[in-house]
């Protein structure tokens, strides 16, 4: 038998309540690296809530979220409190998120919107590196000073030229150590690199001619494409899309779906909540149909779309098809 591929993301028995309302009632699934998982289902079935739990915008009540071998979240029925909800900031970086209504930062240009997370991260990493270096330096100097002290007392006891030389050498070594600096990029260099990376990402979504535009100057489709570029910036392992086209006019939907198709690659894993059935069928490796907080049906696109087993899935697909026909009829 060929070696079983290990999933990139494992979600087990995820539960989430809002007060008395059970929104997720125990959701389990997995996604392999490079796969596209699409989640469909009627309004209120918990799709957004699921994505928000993955991004730690909501704290699940129970369940497991694991990426590669790292358990990001685990809580079983007995546990309570926030003890498993720490270091969220780092955990979040496993996931990117594209929101229904874009949520671009209005005061920044397209380019700056994508640069900002890169720039903040670059700066923070640099500071951490410097801090670590300085700590080590401080310890080194402390040790060297101790050595100097013993050399000095040695020299006091025994005033030989050799001992004097050793003292002088140690002093020099201390001075040298004091003069060393962490080997990091300058802020200017980081900014430059960040800019290149952001420009590159915006090219990938076809917006290289809009780098200096502000969000209010862009169409909805263009704004969403910026949001996609921004979500890719920090290279998350998994990018989540929450109905990326449902706030758009129908004629703008196509360009966004095309961009999502274009960024598909064997290294990019995506979870897409969508009402665009033909798109989901076309692009996905796996489909989840959610109903009332559970996974009603899961499988390959042809399994779910062409041979649905659950009556609920059948009814849902029939309904969306009807809508589709209605829309067609009005044209």
């Amino acid at each position, binding site marked *: 038998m060929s070696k079983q591929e290990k999933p990139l993301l494992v979600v087990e028995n995820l539960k989430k309540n809002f007060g008395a309302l059970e929104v997720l009632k125990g959701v389990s699934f997995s996604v392999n690296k490079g796969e596209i998982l699409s989640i469909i289902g009627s309004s209120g079935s918990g799709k957004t809530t699921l994505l928000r739990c993955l991004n730690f915008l909501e704290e699940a009540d129970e369940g497991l979220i694991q990426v590669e071998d790292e358990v990001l979240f685990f809580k079983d029925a007995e546990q309570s409190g926030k003890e498993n909800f720490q270091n969220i900031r780092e955990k979040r970086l496993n996931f990117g*998120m594209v929101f229904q*209504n874009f*949520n671009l930062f*209005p005061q*920044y240009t397209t380019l700056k919107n994508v640069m900002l997370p890169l720039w*903040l991260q670059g700066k923070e990493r640099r500071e951490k590196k410097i801090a670590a270096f300085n700590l080590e330096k401080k310890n080194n100097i402390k040790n060297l000073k101790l050595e100097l002290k013993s050399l000095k007392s040695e020299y006091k006891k025994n005033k030989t030229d050799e001992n004097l030389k050793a003292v002088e050498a140690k002093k020099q070594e201390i001075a040298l150590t004091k003069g060393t600096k962490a080997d990091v990029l300058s802020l200017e260099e980081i900014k430059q690199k960040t800019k290149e990376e952001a420009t590159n990402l915006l090219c990938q979504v076809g917006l290289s001619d809009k780098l200096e535009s502000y*969000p*209010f100057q862009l169409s909805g489709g263009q704004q969403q494409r910026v949001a996609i570029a*921004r979500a890719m*910036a920090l290279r998350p392992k998994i990018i989540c899309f929450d109905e990326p086209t449902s706030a758009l006019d129908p004629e703008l939907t196509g360009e966004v779906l095309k961009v999502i198709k274009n960024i598909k690659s064997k290294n990019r894993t995506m979870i897409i909540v969508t009402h665009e059935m033909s798109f989901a069928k076309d692009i996905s490796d796996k489909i989840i149909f959610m109903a009332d907080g559970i996974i009603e049906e899961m499988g390959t696109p042809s399994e779910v779309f062409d041979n649905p087993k659950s009556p609920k899935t059948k009814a849902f697909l029939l309904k969306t098809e009807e809508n589709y026909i209605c829309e067609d009829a009005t044209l």
Partner: protein
Amino acid sequence: MFVAVSFASVFNDLMNGFGYTLIIFFITLILSVPLGLIIMFGAVTKFKPLKWLTKGFVWIIRGTPLMLQIIIVFYIPGLLFNAPFKSRLLAVLIAFVINYACYFSEIYRGGLESIPKGQYEAGYVLGMKKSQVFFHIVLMQIIKRILPPMGNEVTTLVKDTSLARVIMIVELIQAAQFQTARHGIIWPLFFTGIFYLIFIGLLTLLFGYIERKLDYYKI
């Protein structure tokens, strides 16, 4: 001859009064703008007791006349602690700073609460800290939102400085009224109006300029 001497001395007195008006205006502005921010944080904190305490305080300050507050601040140390204010101006400044900080805090709060939740969430999912989200994303949007109401409030402050006379600070209007009473002339009062008009005119231009500067984006 008589008229010329009178004009110079009257003008001099008016300028002295205007000096007090300026001092009250600028010191109040400089101190209450940051103090308002602190009060706002008190009003939006999740720590309920502090939140209600702050809200109650803001309600009292905004619900009573500034004139009353000036008088109360002026008399409290003397009558309750037997340590009267050495400087009337200090009493006025304390009352003004507290009063305006409360008004500003409400404006800030309105600005803060007008920022959609999605802006914060977009920042968080990009790995930002709360402070980074505040300073890099939210702050500029708040500033843009609150600029017009801040402009109104600052204009009101210019005119409110005249309340200082209630504890005998000879600010611009008080100075003019003394002249009118002493010499039986009306023009110092009109002259006073011109001072206010010019001052407020300049502030209006300034705020208009800043608003135009921030016009490059829309929220």
